């Protein structure tokens, strides 16, 4: 979650110009991409946790 926060800061810094354009579609795009990247990081994290759990379980049953 912290990652997507930094990501949004970087985008704000880099995009001073485009975020304030008249129709502001890039602002919407930024919002959408922050949500999307946050969700993907969440899923990725979940995937890693489950993998770790499975591995630990496998090790304990074989030992």
């Amino acid at each position: 979650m912290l990652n997507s926060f930094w990501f949004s800061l970087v985008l704000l810094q880099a995009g001073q110009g485009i975020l304030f354009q008249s129709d502001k579609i890039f602002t919407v795009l930024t919002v959408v991409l922050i949500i999307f990247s946050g969700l993907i990081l969440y899923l990725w994290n979940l995937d890693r946790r489950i993998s770790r759990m499975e591995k630990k379980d496998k090790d304990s049953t074989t030992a």
Partner: protein
Amino acid sequence: MLAFFKNNGYKILGVVLIGYALIAGLLKSLPDMGGNMAQTSRNVFYHVPMWFTMYLLMGISVVYSILFLLKGKDRFDVVARESARTGMVFGLFGLSTGIIWSRVTWRELIPSDSFAAWWSWDPKQTMVVVALMIYAAYFILRAGIEESSSRARISAVYNIFAAASLIPLTLILPRMLGGLHPGGDDGNPLENIRLSNEFRVVFYPSVLGFMLLSIWILELRVRFTLYQQKFEDVE
């Protein structure tokens, strides 16, 4: 490194495709649909893939139900259940996004406090609710059967009927009755010229991307449930 892509390649591909669909879908210049459609035609890139993904997951669900009836392996029942569950989530995404889209395009003049502003009784919209209720009954049926092997068998048979009803309810009837959705008057929207190539280059990647994402979610749910089942009887 190679093993990483072997295991995670489809996830990365899905994320890249959705990322592309989000960026290109919002920024690409498209033929102006005009009138009440205007810029909301971009919703084709996000609303429609939800349904494609739901059909895929319900398809996986019924295939695993049939496999369970043939082979009797418990893990097939887990995949069938989790797939139907994830499919329902995508169905609810599709339904809610469709309500918002129709609210601002065809029902824009109706005040917000009126039910008609939010619900058009469009055949596809209505039948999809019926189909989702049939799937809700699948979970109620499961919850009602205590003994796990008969629960798996009976619900697998029910799932075949649920999947069989999905096709006439959401794909055939709405096309015969017309309504807000395309396909009533001029056949399959994917085959006719109303979906121009400018839409297709974003639409198809978006469909594939959301399908891959849903498979990822399904994989996680199945792995988690199988792990959990080692320690307790999970329904």
